[in-house]
């Protein structure tokens, strides 16, 4: 069952001589429990695609259908509510609130949605234990390593049981070991907990954890490769074909 369907998605910035086409008629479908990596050179439109799918930006044309509703036509309030209940976000720089504890950070989307504090706290703690931070529930972000902070961000993204998790270079600020752990966690989220994951990355090793890699260049999808039994080799070959290696 498709969780998100992107049809003819186009985003143009500027006007006149300064016009830049960031996305050019992109089509993409992501199913439930699927982990999709998006790769491409800088400026190819990966993050723009993620922002449009996440309702953080409005497309110039085309549709982003989530549960058969085009989010481009929704009001700001409706999109905000959709993000709160149906989507999860993981950012490159973790973006945790420095003055809140690990548990409070993970519980934020629930708190924002008006869930009772005790319930929000319980659910956040469950997810933190699932991502391996059961012993860091009361820590502040500055008391955690980068990898641990990103685990909190993943728990925060999953705490509302969203259909879709969007991760924008979630390993870009981590060492290789932590990066690998986060990629595995996202894969677990897709395979074990049934979430659809869309992850933007530059790192082929990280991308090889996904089920599928979408390659982009100049705002368009140039390849869409399902990874097989040897995902690392498949990923490398696909990158060579796309001219990224």
């Amino acid at each position: 069952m498709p969780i998100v369907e992107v049809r003819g998605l186009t985003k143009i910035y500027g006007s006149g001589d300064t016009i830049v086409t960031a996305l050019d008629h992109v089509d993409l479908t992501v199913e439930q429990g699927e982990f999709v990596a998006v790769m491409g050179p800088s400026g190819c439109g990966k993050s723009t695609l993620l922002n449009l799918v996440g309702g953080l930006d409005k497309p110039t044309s085309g549709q982003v259908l989530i549960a058969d509703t085009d989010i481009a036509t929704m009001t700001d309030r409706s999109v905000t509510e959709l993000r709160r209940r149906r989507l999860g976000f993981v950012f490159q720089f973790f973006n945790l609130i420095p003055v809140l504890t690990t548990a409070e950070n993970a519980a934020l989307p629930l708190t924002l949605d008006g869930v009772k504090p005790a319930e929000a706290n319980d659910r956040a703690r469950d997810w933190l234990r699932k991502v391996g931070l059961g012993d860091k529930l009361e820590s502040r972000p500055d008391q955690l390593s980068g990898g641990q902070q990103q685990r909190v961000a993943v728990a925060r993204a999953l705490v509302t049981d969203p259909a879709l998790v969007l991760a924008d270079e979630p390993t870009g600020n981590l060492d290789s070991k932590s990066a690998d752990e986060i990629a595995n966690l996202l894969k677990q989220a897709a395979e074990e907990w049934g979430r659809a994951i869309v992850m933007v990355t530059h790192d082929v090793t990280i991308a090889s954890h996904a089920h599928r890699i979408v390659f982009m260049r100049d705002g368009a999808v140039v390849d869409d490769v399902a990874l097989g039994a040897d995902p690392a080799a498949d990923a490398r070959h696909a990158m060579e074909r796309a001219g990224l290696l």
Partner: protein
Amino acid sequence: MNVSATLAWRYLIGRPGRTALTTLAITLGVALIFGLNGMMPGLADVFTKTLFSAAGQVDLTVSSPSAGNFETSIADKVAGLPGVSVATPSLRRSAGMPNSSAVSVITIVGIDPRSAQKVRSFNLAAGRMLSDGDAGQVVIGSDTATTLGLHVGSSLKIPTVAGTESFTVAGLLANGSSPSAPEVYVTLPDAQRMIGAGGLINTVEARLASGADRSVVEAAARRRLGSDYTVGGLSNESTLLASVQTANYMFTFFGVFALIMGGFIILNTFRTLVAERRHDIGMLRAIGADRGTILGIFLTQSVIQGVLGTVVGIAAGYLLTLVALSWYQPMLKNIMHINATISPSYSAGTWVAAIALGVGVTVLSAVIPARQAARMTPLEALRPQAAEVEERQRSRWVIVGWVTLTASILMLFSKQISLVMLGAAATLMGLVLVAPALIQPLSYALSFVLRPFAPATADLSSSNVTRQPGRAAATASAILVSLAVVVAVLGVVTSLYAGFFDYINKSLGSDFVFIPNGLILGGANVGADESFVQRIADTPGMGAVATLRLGQAEIGKSQVQVVGIDPVDYPKVASFTYSKGTKTSDIAKLGQGRTMLVNGITSGQQGLAVGKKVALQTPNGLKDYTVVGVATDYLNAKLSTVYISQENLQKDFNVTSNVLVLANAKPGAPKPAVKAALGRLVANYPQFVLYDSATFKATQTALFSQTFVVFDFLIGMFALPTLLALLNTLAISVLARTREIGMLRAVGTTRGQVRGMVVAEALLLAAVGVAFGIAGGIALGYALVYALNSSMYVMPYYFPWGGIVVAVVAGFSFALLASILPARTAAKLDIVTALHYE
């Protein structure tokens, strides 16, 4: 607690330094409003008790609206009114005691013992009450006796117009006395002799018959006595109470100014918070926080900070009240002879003003940044902040600012008091509005000064200041208001100082001054009769002698002080400060019928010009006086005063005693010897203090310095926000440019150059603020002096050079001080960390 409140609270406690800094801005304003106004009810209460001490226990009081003396027969008229069971005459006058006495001033109360005891209750603790025919006997309160170490049978020396007289303490009263000037009861004939008011009284007190309607009796008394008498109590339209009210307004005015400065600082603080929490805002919006939640976080924080700042401000204000009162009370004792304990007391209005302004200003200042934060899209907030973006030029507001400034100049020169005051406010508002547009050219021009010393950092710091004109303008505005008040207050102080010393030289510039034991003439002190003056004149080596006498009158319903001078003698030893159109020779006109000179306050309040005829309410009825000039002397500069001849004062006000004597030594006479002889003479008149001109000026200089401590304190309080504003802005500036500083360090900028850049930025911001502050301060100072000139004190306007110097020194010193911490932070930044800072 909802998410907005939780986050707001956590952010506050997570950044204690920032929280303290911002809270301090609110605290300052609230402390000023609350603290200074906390003295007022206590002061007013003491003044009221002093004024009304005679009216406390009786059913009906009759006095002269002018507080002057009148015939004893009025008591008989009151006694004959239907509903009045008994009436008693009395004569009250305060008298300065010798400096060695434990009580600095007493109130001599002459009573008719028999009738007085039927009207008032005199509870004796020891001895006996006065009886008819007693002479040289006094009855005093037990508390006063304890203070003075007296008992029944002791001797008490009391000043009289004919010198000090000894009285025997006949009895001690159990009831307490007036806190400021304890009553000393003597028989009426004794009092009339002591005060020099033979056959006269100044109060009639009455007890009503059982069942009599007080309002009916009062109405009957008014009909019987006419408008020449006040029935029902003493006037509460006291000059002192009016001064308390004026001080109340002034303190609130200063407090509001302090809060406006605080507002600018808070505005910048919340701008910083929004910039700092940009990514937090982006993340929150991305994960589903709506705009209301973001707005709520910042507004909740502002409410918490406003409440916190207000609570701390109220506590600080209470301490301020205690400190101010501990400083004021000796002043009241020494200068006004009010010896009372004043406790902090706060009116409902003071509470409301402090709380509403403290919380209100904080929330209002946070609204703009909070709305900006809420309007940010998640994507805008999440994007790396590559460089600070030039803020929108608010050109429309800048045009309004220029128009306001132009109008303000016209208003300042309009010579209409209300327009002049409006002009000063408009100047400040105009400067605030045009500040964003002037930041760039001013900063660029000022960077030329820095360029020879540090070419690279001068350009960088100039561009740093101008890239955020809104933030720089808010900082400059806070400095502007802060330093404008400093310049204005110092301008007013300079003008007051110079103006009053001009008065002293003219009106008290004689070789010797016999001045009441206290500076202010008001309060109907016991003076001295002609024999005292004659003895001064007869002292070997003595030249011209002139005296001042004192009465009270009403013009309309306003009280005025009436000073009696001898038009021939007075110009020989003193002169007035004359307003335009009046000259020395006009004094001679006081000898021609009922004529008077009026001082600046009276002229302003009553609209009196030369040639105008006005009715003075005297103890002997309404008398028409013609204004022959506008002039002011030193002692009466602060009080509404008219000057008439001593002949008219005696005729219309029944006053013959002298309350001030001015004397010149003969040319060549040995002044020390003359002074020694005069000193022996004045020893028997403790209500007077003898000064030679040099000592008197030195005493007054010391008094002024003591009085102006309050201004020094205000100046300090107002200069402080400059430091806070600069510290805040520089901290923001360094924080927002962390990556840029990392880049500069990476390409070879030394730590010293980075430090220099921040210091230079501080100096440029301060320079702009100082320039605006001086411009605003000159306008505000001019308006304040103009207002004082029009309504109270006549004084020349002095350009506030001193204030300008203080503003420049304070502005740049604070800039250097404020830049220490941010400059060190910037210089110590780790290059790699800074380059990765988001």
